[in-house]
């Protein structure tokens, strides 16, 4: 089940500094405090993370890193 997580200002500023993957979107990996990595998450407008699985708490995010730019057909 997918879910959308609205990121707070801290992560929005972080994402603004990262490259876009296409107009309006970024593909990222979200690294959690536990060491778990949620791979290939799309974020729209640097704010709305489209999580592939259930909702996570923003406090559990340790880092967000950009994936190599590629589009999926």
């Amino acid at each position, binding site marked *: 089940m997918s879910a959308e997580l609205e990121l707070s200002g801290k992560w*929005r500023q972080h994402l603004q500094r990262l490259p*876009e993957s296409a*107009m309006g979107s970024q593909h990222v990996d979200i690294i959690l405090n536990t060491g778990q990595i949620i791979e290939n998450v799309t974020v729209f407008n640097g704010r709305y993370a489209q999580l592939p699985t259930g909702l996570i708490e923003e406090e559990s995010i340790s880092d967000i890193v950009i994936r190599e730019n590629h589009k999926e*057909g």
Partner: protein
Amino acid sequence: MGYQIGVVRLNTGKNEHGIILNGTYFVPSTELAGFSALSQLVEEAQATVRASKSSVTIEGAALDSRPAASLRRVKRIHSLSAANEKQAAAKDAEVTLTLRNEIFKRFSAYENDFRVTEKRGLVPNTYATTAEDALNVKTGMEAIARYALESKKSANKVFTISPPENTRLQRGVVEPAYGEPGGGLEVIFVDGTPDYTVTGPEIIAEK
């Protein structure tokens, strides 16, 4: 006959800006107004040298640096080849430079688009399209199709970007993706754009 533009140092001690023809003849900028064609200019310069009318000689020259992409003739060749080649996505293209007064557009689903700074510039590595290509798009849903946008929220907010000449960018063609055909032109502003270069958004129809 080729030409170069630059500043030469004369044996009189003066520096003068002008055109160097074929690496041989120098014509100061102040004298260019009297000529309507390059051929006329060349003939006059050659005649002057043959008649040894001038005792002035050139001791050194510093040429104006002009990026290839800003030369009109080079741009035409680029446009011609672009029409005949299958173009790659912008991310795989070489970095080129914007031309003077070139305008770009960015389609977004959000009025507070995250790539536009508080001072109305663009942050580095931001996508947009050319103003010419944007003429093909009348609605936010058409923007999703032409630029293969992943979000299906209507991208009906249109920002206008007016970067200075020689702003670095990559140019390419949008590949099909996310069930959309793509095919529009896309650019990436590698270093972003300076403050006060972004206006809008203009709101267009959603669909």
